[in-house]
């Protein structure tokens, strides 16, 4: 089948197998930041934005993105660069495999709740697993970014 969508601001038209998952479509189109960590919608690694809202690209058919706008970390480099340095300063990037999904969801969080409390951050990002960092370093990074913005 044919689908047409906006991928990181560019119009993309492609013939796809109806069963193709969005994550595989995105990786086939060079969006290698999108990672698969499970097959059961449990890890959050494959988070991308559809029409600005975070979704799990492993649990959605590419066909459903037809007519929509998809953004991956490749398309949001500047918005991410604004805050990820603060996470790097904590050393909380670690192996990095969960970072793109976590960063995408953090972008969604900061758009939706510009000044979140720590509990709001934890709750919003609860679906993004990380096995390395123990999560606190990621929280400290986001918190110090928010503090720097106030300063």
């Amino acid at each position, binding site marked *: 089948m044919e689908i047409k969508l906006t991928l990181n601001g560019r119009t993309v038209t492609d013939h796809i*197998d109806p069963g193709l998952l969005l994550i595989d479509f995105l990786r086939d189109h060079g969006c*290698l*930041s999108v*990672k698969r*960590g*499970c*097959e*059961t919608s*449990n*890890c959050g*690694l494959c988070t991308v934005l559809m029409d600005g809202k975070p979704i799990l690209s492993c649990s959605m058919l590419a066909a459903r993105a037809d007519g929509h706008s998809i953004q*991956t*970390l*490749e398309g949001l*480099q500047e918005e*991410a*660069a604004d805050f*990820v*340095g603060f*996470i*790097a*300063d*904590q*050393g*909380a*990037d*670690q*192996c*990095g*495999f*969960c*970072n*793109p999904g976590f*960063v995408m969801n953090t972008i969604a969080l900061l758009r939706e709740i510009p000044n979140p409390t720590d509990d709001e951050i*934890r*709750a919003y*990002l*609860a*679906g*993004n*697993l*990380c*096995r*390395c*960092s*123990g*999560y*606190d*370093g*990621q*929280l400290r990074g986001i918190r110090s970014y928010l503090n720097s913005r106030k300063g």
Partner: protein
Amino acid sequence: MEQRQYKTVGKSIRKKDSMQLLLGKPVYTQDVVPGNALVVKLLRSPHPNAIVREINTVAAKKVPNVVDIYTWEDVPQTRFAIAGQTYPEPSPYDRLIIDRHVRFVGDVVAIIAAETEQAAEKAKKLIKVKYDLLEPVLDFRKAKDNATLVHPEEDWFPPCEVGGDNQRNLVASGQEEHGDVDGVLASCDIVLDRTYHTKAFNQAMMETFRTYTDLDRYGRLHVVSSTQIVFHARRILSRALGIPKSRIRVEKPRIGGGFGAKQTAVCEVYPAFVTLKTGRPAMLIYSREESQIAGSPRHEMEIRVRLGASKDGKIRVLDLYTLSNSGAYGEHGPTTVGLTGHKSIPLYTGSLEAFRFGYDVVYTNLQAAGAYRGYGATQGIFALETTVNELAEQLGMDPTVLRDRNMVKEGMVMPAYYGEVANACALDRCMAHCRDMFGWEEKYPVRDMGNGKVRCAGVAMAMQGSCISSLDVGSATVKLSDDGTYNLIIGAADMGTGCDTILAQMVAECMDCSVDDVAVFGADTDVSPYDSGSYASSTTYITGKAVEKACTDLKKQICAIAAQMMGCAEEEVVFESTRVRRVNTDQTVSLQDISYKAQLFNDQVAQATATHTSPVSPPPYMVGMVEIELDKLTGQVTILDFMAVVDCGIPINPALARIQTEGGLVQGIGHTLMENVTYDAKGRPMESSFLQYKLPTRLDMGKLRVEFEHSYEPTGPFGAKSIGEIVINTPAPAIAHAVYRATGVWHRELPITPEKVAMTKPE
């Protein structure tokens, strides 16, 4: 303690790859290899113990885009082990690439190579297998001398003598004793005899196992793998495939987590075999389910502790026996078990008069275990520390005070730790610091919150090692680059831990330059100097020392070139960061000019490689304290506060040391409260996905607090010991202690789920 001032060591510098990782750049195995590789899939056994009587691939091979399918008849018949260990490995050679005898649910029956994933999956369903079912050994307590043999084969081969016997289902066995254990036990005022059970917890690193292979421009087998052990992987592949090591090159890109899982060559042989057969690039990516059921998890163990003490709280004797379940294959079986005793008993060196440590490691028809952060110490420390907490409760003593009286202290000889001296040991200071910061006096008493919930606290100590002493080897090459900067080339594997950065900090410290002026490359068997790999907490301690040595040599070389340039003797010049100066003169040459000179009419090398090994493995130490809130109705345990104070010697990068600690604590919390491993009656694993295997989320770990008590380890680089593994060891005993305080029940089996807490009444 020695106090030294460093410029770069001891600073929280960003990981050199941080921004690449955080911005989602393509740096992992699947991102960096060509897209034209054959898709490799594995057909796995649904039975725990069976012989493949007949396997028919005719229909499967007819699926369009299927290139080939391989069965037990197609593979070499040389047994090998996939444990990443220094040769000769303690792990028995008990595997074939595909064995006609399948030994666990998930064992490989066929390798499928196809142009597309869909074709491979379709073919997998069309392979027809007839099995002769055998009685499985599913209970590791009944495995030793069972009538059913997991490895009856005659070519089973142990490269090292470790007390194994395949005719008894034994991977390894042994015992050691120091002092008169039975005599001391008989004279003790109080003897506790307790048995503990821990499960085969999964590393669950976010990037599953994966390997890409092709033939390089010289026709050699080129392997790109998510591995902690490039050199061991090359040796393993050589034996398994029957080709010389010189025909193999293994490299690792960035790794999406390992925690020991990737210290075993879990999946490398399959795509490598396909590439050798077809001459084509091949790629195997394990699904999460495969990583859960056919990976390399922690060894399930049952540990019996007998502890003898005097009534005034002197721990006089310890007797530990560990039964370890290695599963269907023996990887890391003989070695992990050793740590259950060697990395727990020495904690009580202070008062111990005698100890005994015995063990059996058995085969069963369950998933083979491997290396997981903590490597046996985690299990042993859960058992011993819980027993010590029970002693304190029985004696009515504060458990921190009980430990003050018995713990190992700096300068002591540790008979239970190969007779090593505790050169650097701040365990006593860790305890005092933790007690203060945590607020032990207030939090230890049980507080009824009036809503069916109680709050209380628990404590535990831990130790680990900093390498495998007198065995493993680390190396580093440091070379002067064109513009007066440096290249550092290593064979150790940064799996997210930050060792590339930490080792670069050491170069920067030695060469008095910025970390930005050190470019790091690792790891590639064709390029890197030999290194055992990143495991056993050893990279900072062993490879770090090699970096220090290499820098010393390089400095001499740079001075020699500079002396020649200035027309004087080498003894007359001094290295000064960006230049070399002739002493007592203003004559200098810049590092950049020296590097140009090194390339022009020059016969003096400006590149040093050094190798290091250590006869000792200095333990890091730590204390963990936890405050929980326990709901008596539901059994829900909520972590409120986890305080850890760690003595890792001098932390090279405190931010990274802190993250290591926090990450280890949360993994430990997961194993204690929610991660479980169970099998059905037919040996099928129940927790085969993240739906059932529950990792802690960021809502599950409460407030973490991490502090350091410095000690200075004279044999380590810049006084450093290790931190990678020890940090996983305190949550289980500390939480089990707190749960006892709240409920009056000692939970001696992990995990301690809400169901168990709610349903178990005090004895």
